[in-house]
């Protein structure tokens, strides 16, 4: 019954790991044509489904067993919840009569995941299943997207029930608003017309809503520069002259100055995260703020809003575009251009050529392999360097753990992307710390012959934590050295993947070119400068115009 429902929902790929309580479901899977990707740890199944969902826009589907199988999903679910990724997860549960008895492999997974799912269900009767399945897919993939978990006791899997699947559901407490309020939209139009120094500040909501085209039209009609949060990268072409980069803690100087100086911020599908706003009291004090978001609870949560618009960002932006005339913001754009030439993205400290610079590696990956590519990152310094230096041109091609900051996300997410977009190149940019959090998936990529380039930015440290120890804890590098890490080239080879090492700029370029010419999984171990820091940087709880580069205040 579940598999028929998945067919009706046009699910073509499932990510999972079997176990006792889901045996009945896996038994049905044995004869079913749907593709199931067996991972080596349940956490990787969620991250892979997450990557798949971010690339396709469709809910990622996960199967796991009860108890530890289910609890291993939790980090991945929390990650998807924070980044609003649509997902439907199925967990097996002990038989109904055993629930609440601390039975073998029993965990109250619906209780555990209430705070990190959009909704969840414990199915008590197979007759409820069709309704619950339809609701789950509907809730996950509408409104503000998010993960939905369905926990199914083993005896319910075995129960026979009438299957009548209706995708049209009516949930009294769930009616997302899509159309923006007409009055607020015209207030926004007026504000945009009046603004002398407007900026668009967009986030992940643009990507989920498929609003890139509307965004481009708005920016180009009204000549408004665009700033994108980490989650928003790709919603606007990274090589466009109107694009100012990412704001916040490791954002571009121009983006932070522009937000600080702007007289109008058009915030679309963003949630004003602390990593973006810095100290709230001094954030965008000169600006009126229009905030467009599908989730009313995000509006006014962190920052006071002048024009709130609840709705689908694509629909609202299209309305705005219809009502706007070509604008002129020349003086403002000139000021921005000055900042851009005065403060380019720093390329790394120290003498060039002596050591391999991580920024150089990312730029080479972007230059040589960036066309038609999907990039998945892990979390830490390499993630920020990728956000700064890799040119992301298209939406749904940049996968990163934004809200939760989950080390170990990138590699499995790249696996999901690989299955979601067979015609695209997939590059996983990871660190020596992050990679070891899901390194076991080398078996999955080798076994399934998945074309993925794994670029390990290896600095032998938990680099981002070390950077904070460097700046805020007098270089007391407590437990951030990754001594004892394996030789990644030999590990990859042991799993059966191809692998190279690069220790100089020339070797890096060569290794990337070679990897691009090969099939199957390829790992490159880039031995980069161990003490390179990510700049620009805004210290936590400082104003975002308070920027340090290379240890110096600018």
């Amino acid at each position, binding site marked *: 019954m579940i598999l028929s429902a998945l067919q009706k929902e046009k699910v073509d790929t499932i990510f999972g790991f079997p176990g006792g309580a889901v045996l009945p479901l896996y038994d049905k899977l044995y004869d079913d044509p749907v593709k199931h990707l067996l991972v080596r740890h349940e956490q990787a199944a969620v991250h892979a489904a997450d990557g798949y969902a971010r690339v396709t826009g469709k809910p990622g589907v996960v199967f796991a067993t009860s108890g530890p199988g289910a609890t291993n999903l939790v980090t991945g679910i929390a990650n998807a919840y924070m980044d609003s990724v649509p997902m439907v997860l199925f967990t097996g549960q002990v038989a109904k009569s055993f629930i609440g008895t601390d039975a073998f492999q029993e965990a109250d997974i*619906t*209780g555990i995941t209430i705070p990190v799912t*959009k*909704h969840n269900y*414990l199915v008590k009767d197979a007759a409820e299943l069709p309704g619950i399945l339809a609701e789950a897919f509907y809730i996950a993939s509408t409104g503000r997207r998010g993960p939905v978990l369905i926990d199914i006791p083993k005896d319910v899997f075995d129960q026979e029930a009438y299957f009548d699947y209706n995708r049209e559901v009516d949930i*009294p*407490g*769930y009616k997302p608003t899509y159309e923006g309020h007409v009055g607020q939209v015209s207030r926004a139009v007026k504000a945009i017309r009046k603004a002398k120094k407007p900026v668009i500040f967009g986030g992940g909501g643009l990507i989920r809503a498929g609003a890139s085209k509307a965004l481009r039209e708005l920016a180009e009609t009204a000549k408004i520069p665009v700033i994108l949060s980490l989650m928003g990268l790709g919603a606007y072409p990274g090589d466009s002259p109107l694009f100012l980069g990412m704001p916040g803690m490791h954002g571009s100087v121009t983006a932070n100055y522009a937000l600080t100086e702007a007289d109008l911020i058009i915030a679309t599908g963003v949630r004003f995260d602390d990593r973006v706003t810095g100290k709230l009291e001094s954030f965008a004090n000169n600006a009126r703020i229009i905030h467009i978001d599908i989730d*009313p*609870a995000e509006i006014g949560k962190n920052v006071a809003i002048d024009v709130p618009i609840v709705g689908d960002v694509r629909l609202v932006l299209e309305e705005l575009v219809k009502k706007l005339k070509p604008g002129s913001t020349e003086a403002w754009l000139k000021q921005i251009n000055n900042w851009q030439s005065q403060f380019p993205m720093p390329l790394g400290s120290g003498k060039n050529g002596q050591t391999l610079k991580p920024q150089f590696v990312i730029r080479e990956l972007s230059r040589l392999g960036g066309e038609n590519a999907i990039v998945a990152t892990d979390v830490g310094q390499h993630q920020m360097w990728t956000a700064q230096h890799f040119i992301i041109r298209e939406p749904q091609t940049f996968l990163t753990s934004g809200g939760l900051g989950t080390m170990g996300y990138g590699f499995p997410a790249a696996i999901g992307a690989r299955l979601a977009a067979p015609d695209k190149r997939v590059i996983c940019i990871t660190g020596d710390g992050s990679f070891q959090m899901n390194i076991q998936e080398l078996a999955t990529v080798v076994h399934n012959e998945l074309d993925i380039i794994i670029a390990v930015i290896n600095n032998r440290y938990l680099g981002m934590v070390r950077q904070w120890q460097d700046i805020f804890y007098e270089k007391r590098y407590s437990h951030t050295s990754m001594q004892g890490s394996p030789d990644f080239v030999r590990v990859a080879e042991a799993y059966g993947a191809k692998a190279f090492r690069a220790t100089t700029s020339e070797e890096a370029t060569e290794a990337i070119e070679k990897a691009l010419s090969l099939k199957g999984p390829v790992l490159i171990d880039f031995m980069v400068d161990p003490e390179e820091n990510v700049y620009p940087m805004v210290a936590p709880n400082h104003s975002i115009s308070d920027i340090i580069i290379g240890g110096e205040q600018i």
Partner: protein
Amino acid sequence: MKHVLAVLVENKPGALTRVSGLFSRRGFNIENIAVGETLTPGISRMTITVEGSETLIEQVMKQLHKLINVIRVSNLSAEPSVMRELMLIKVRAEVGNRSDIQQIVETFRGKVVDVSPNSMVIEVTGNEEKMEAIKLLLEHFGILEVVRTGKVALLRGSKITREA
């Protein structure tokens, strides 16, 4: 300021956990909560008293609304409304002072619902001030135990909080 929220929820397993969990998770303080059935089968009504600023209450209401099982959230403190709470008080009572207690109970339009050789159980309904006032007066005799239902409230006039 104290706000009294009427929250209509689908009567599904875990609905109460979802609501109370939301409060603790987001650092909102529930002062009290009362739950009961409504006229519509399958829908319960929670009356939740929360202390906080206007901005905080707005965020509480929006977050509550995001729960799939929550159908409607309204702030009854924003409009004229009647609020009541029921309290049972077990007070020490000897033959000699029963009539004194009886008099206080009558003044507050309460009821004596149980009498034993050395105690009485009294039922009172009303607003918070009334509860505190009778408690204060009965303390003199020795209060053994108190139980309260938490506040329930309805809007004044014919306006209602719709259930669907």
